[in-house]
């Protein structure tokens, strides 16, 4: 796997996608290639191990924890999604494998399978709700939440990151969307279309 990684050129599926003219109510950005791992591990073993590759696994289900560059999301009772910078892929894998040696687990590199994008702005939740059935209100889905769900016909993992200031300095919601590579153009187009429609209705 390590050999493959150095040979394969990481080309983003969305590199060639035309970005929409940015409506003021929302900003949609594609993210560069990143390192991603799915970790399956018994909940008891996760508690015993505490943290893996610098990331704490002691999280409620559907919450994530992050440091400056990496994040860990608990997607189910025994499933975590770990994300870090592309350059950290080998060290993250080696750290996790070392920490889990002797423990029954599965650690799968899915760096190439997923594509990430970010959506922020005061209308971000409305635009996501064009295709996502989740209650995205602050009580049900505050910053720190993350879950697998649907956007239109595609499965995505949706993260609510910390709010960010918009151009006027007002704190607005900030989401990260992860989807499978083959769904990326559909998901990106879905969000761009919903944003354009929202802008058209508002203006």
């Amino acid at each position, binding site marked *: 796997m390590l050999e493959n990684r150095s040979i394969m050129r990481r080309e983003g599926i969305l590199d060639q996608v035309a970005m929409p003219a940015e409506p003021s109510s929302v900003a949609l950005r594609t993210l560069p290639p990143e390192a991603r791992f799915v970790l399956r591990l018994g909940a008891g073993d996760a508690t015993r191990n505490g943290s893996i590759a610098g990331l704490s696994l002691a999280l409620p*289900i*559907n919450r994530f924890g992050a440091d400056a560059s990496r994040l860990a999301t608990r*997607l*189910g*009772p025994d*499933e975590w999604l770990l994300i870090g910078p592309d350059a950290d892929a080998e060290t993250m894998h080696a750290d996790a494998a070392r920490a889990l040696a002797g423990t029954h687990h599965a650690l799968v590199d899915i760096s190439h399978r997923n594509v990430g994008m970010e959506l922020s702005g005061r209308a971000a939740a409305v635009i996501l709700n064009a295709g996502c*059935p*989740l209650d995205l209100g602050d009580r049900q889905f505050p910053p720190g939440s993350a*879950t*697998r*769900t*649907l956007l239109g016909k595609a*499965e995505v993992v949706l993260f609510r990151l910390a709010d960010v200031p918009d151009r006027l300095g007002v704190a607005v919601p900030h989401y990260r969307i992860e989807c499978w590579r083959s769904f990326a153009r559909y998901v990106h187009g879905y969000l761009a279309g919903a944003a354009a429609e929202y802008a058209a209705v508002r203006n």
Partner: protein
Amino acid sequence: MLLIECPHCGPRAEIEFRCGGEAHIARPADPSALDDNAWAEFLFYRSSPKGVHAERWNHAHGCQRWFNALRDTMSDRILATYPAGAARPNITTIEAAR
């Protein structure tokens, strides 16, 4: 939109779930000891009640875990959800769930 209470994720939209048929069907401990009729009974025959039905559900586009639900087949109302492996809650009527 029908909301289903996932034991792990809480109330979520029905579109995230898949139904896996009747719950609490125990696989025979020694299948080779069964005659064809008994084996067919286990494989193919399911109850189809008008009223409360125990079903397996999978939160396919969420935590992806299986759990069980009691659903009223007349009203499509989900009366209770509970973890796979847990005993069936003693709910037999809609009134009892209220």
